């Protein structure tokens, strides 16, 4: 799965969890979305792990700066799971 395919899948989570519609782009980050607070961050990480059936290592998610980097992290997790 490439970055845009992963972002497309992530969009379903955001569609469900956000009251105001959010359109995911690689450049988008929590700072740009009012509803994306620390509680929402917990929800997003838990939902992403369950949707992609992956488990992040400690600190990995915090290190990502935007949706694009987050999607790349997901891609790496999926790849290492497959190998």
């Amino acid at each position, binding site marked *: 799965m490439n970055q845009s395919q992963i972002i497309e899948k992530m969009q379903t*989570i955001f569609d*469900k*969890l956000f*009251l105001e519609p959010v359109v995911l782009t690689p450049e988008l980050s929590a700072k740009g979305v009012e*509803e994306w607070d620390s*509680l*929402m961050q*917990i*929800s*997003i990480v*838990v*939902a992403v792990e*369950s949707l992609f059936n992956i*488990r992040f*290592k*400690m*600190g990995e998610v915090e290190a990502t700066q935007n949706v694009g980097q987050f999607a790349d992290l997901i891609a790496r997790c999926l790849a290492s799971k497959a190998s």
Partner: protein
Amino acid sequence: MGYSYDTIKSLLISKRPEFWQALKQASQDAVSLEEILFLATLRKRADASKDIPPVDGVTSLRIAILGGYSLYPLRELIEQSLFAVGYVSHCYLGAYDNYTSEILDDTSDMVAFKPEVVILLPSQRRHSYQGALTDDRQVIEGHLKKECQQLLALTHTLHEKTKADILLYNFIPPPGHDLGTYRNKTLASPWSYTALLNLELGLNAPSYVQICDVHFMAARMGLLVAQDRRGWFESKQLGSPALLVAMARESARIIAALRQPMKKVLVLDLDNTIWGGVIGDAGLEGIELGDTSPRGEAFKYFQKYVLSLTERGILLAVCSKNDHDKAMEPFEKHPEMVLRSQHIVCFKANWQPKSDNIRAIAQELNLGLESFVFVDDNPAEIEIVRQFLPQVSTISLASDPSDYVGQLEDSHYFEPLVITREDRDRSSQYMRETRYKELQSVATDMDSYLSSLAMQATFSAFTRVDVPRIAQLINKSNQFNLTTKRRSESEVLALLASDQHVTCTIRLSDRFGDHGLISVVIGQIDGDCLHVDTWLMSCRVLKRQVEEEALNELVRLAVRSGCSQVVGHYLPSAKNGMVKSHYQNLGFTTVREDDDGGDYVLHIAGYRPKQTNISIVRSAK
């Protein structure tokens, strides 16, 4: 029933009052952490905006959550789970690992918050064994007991200060294979130590402490699923998201259970519920029940479980579409039946709608429909009851009888917060009362009814061994109590030696069982007067002529003490209106009667003992 999240969102955005019901339903249905957090966000948003009128029928509740973990997002999950069961909470959230000082410090904000419920998650790190694996068992046990006592002492202090109910989380045994076969051979292993500490906590917990059983919940979902070391290192979480959700749900359920009356009656269908097949078609030999077939064995196992509920004080009733005699036949004649007719307090087998029958059972037992649970394998019958008697809880049994017991076990309807010996006896007591009602309906007049009871009363002066029961009656009886004079056990004991008093207890039994010590009379001798200082009776035996026999005895005791008159007094209380005319009814003459009560006299000369249907035994003094 379910609401899609888009629907709930649009209800919120369009400010519709149905939003609250939809949110409540969705909160009950939600399974994952992110769903519950999302619904919590919607709830807070609706609260803050105040655009939607607040929901009816919710109770507000002050809770404090304290512990050796980060209590966030657990707090959100607990509050949302409480909302799902009808509570709007106001929450005090403790600081991370600060619970001891929050409890001990008299000036703490937590105490000032006045919580009604405190949820306490003690730190597992602080309650693990630090010694060596080879330490003596006694040493480790001593350490463990001390830790348990300290923790319970903390809950005691907490309760003293807040009067709150306390939910105490226990500890998760670690799921690692570590130590192998040696794991169970030393109490110093984290596995053994945690397991025993959890047991000690539960076995020693006082009534105001409910154990919120993390050990059990984690084991149920799988310890590997429940544990989350990453969550601990990253943000000091108790466990995995799945465990947090499960514990939040469990906490809310316990809090609700503390505030709601427990279920009292289990109403059973018969065909394909307690036996396989239809008794009306298959007959006694044709139904599946007993150890000869797997299905028969499963039905028998179900009956055993159902019978075990009576020990918790649950009453059993039957509601079946059947001919009465055919339905009763297995209870009387089938050798594999575990449930017998004496276990069923009310038996309705007829062709009336089940909702009508259940309503009739509730009336006969004089219990509210809210305390009823109805089980049936037929979804149509469940639906009728749900529609016509929405107060009744229902369990729609699965298609496989091997699942029946699990369905009841997981229904949460029969979870006692405490079990008393009284619970165990409740079933037989009700049984007696319903039999009286049956008997009353066949007996044509009161006299033949009373005579059919074959009552026997035993009279005795107070004895040492009866003192606790006598004191209990003296201090608890309100209705049939002429003077409501309370006495301590030692005051009762003093009467045994007094030559100024005559005392009498009455025990009653009949063909349905023993009622025990049900009446207490104390007379005070004053010259030729015997003043009735105390006359009380348990209301269970009203209208059974016990009063008349008590008067016969009182007169006998008066004569023996050289008295020529019995003087009765009525002191009105908020609850004893039922005995206002007690002495007039017994033929006493009114001396005085006003707002403060009355004095009544009976001259013994010419007294003719009352005739009753009770045979009298006088125990030797």
